[in-house]
């Protein structure tokens, strides 16, 4: 498997909501960048864009 293929596989797993379980255990079960956190971040991004558009319209 090439590096690019491994990256692609990892991305697909993340988008399916999977986390590297063993790594989470090693890092005391605390990980910030979970799929849920990234979804929230995406919503914040979208809200920021909307605010910018409203300001431009005004």
């Amino acid at each position, binding site marked *: 498997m090439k590096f690019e293929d491994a990256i692609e596989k990892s991305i697909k797993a993340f988008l399916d909501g999977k986390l590297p379980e063993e790594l989470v255990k090693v890092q005391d079960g605390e990980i910030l960048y979970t799929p849920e956190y990234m979804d929230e971040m*995406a919503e914040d991004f979208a809200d920021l864009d909307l605010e910018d558009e409203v300001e431009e319209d005004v």
Partner: protein
Amino acid sequence: MFDTRDLGPVPGENYTADTRNYPWHRPPEIDTYDGTVDYVIDRMRDEQTAEIVYSLMEIGRPLTNIVAGLMMQGIGRGKFQIDMAVLAAGPVYRYLQMLADSSNIKYEDGLNKKRIPITATTLKMVMGIIDDEEAPEEPVEAATAPVGGLMGSPSPEETTEAPADVQAAMLGMTDEEEEV
């Protein structure tokens, strides 16, 4: 003839080189998942890196390729290990998606690549080789010359045949020459 170089490095060969020659030979600077993602996201906030990332997205480079490139940079600089780069690729990809969406860039995700099987025909197409036997015969349309106008051929009405004596003069068959 048997060549030992085909087998790869000789066992223990790594001990013959200075292990601090390259950044990736040393222990990584970042060994946490969140730290790795933080580092890559911070890198994307750098003006030069951001320009490259946005440009790559705009020209339709798949996001997976861009993520792989960013991760390779980090590995090359000894910031994190390959394993960590692979594990942290998901959040970085998601962040790139957000950037593209917020900038209204139509991106190629690169996740649904279909492998094109390599055949003799596809290779020939890539290399620009066309066999006469295999080339499909396309019906050739009869060329139609424009009629009339300055550059067009004369229409049947315009065509006038020169008289026989004029034709003979043009061919140099005048009476004088014939006499000579």
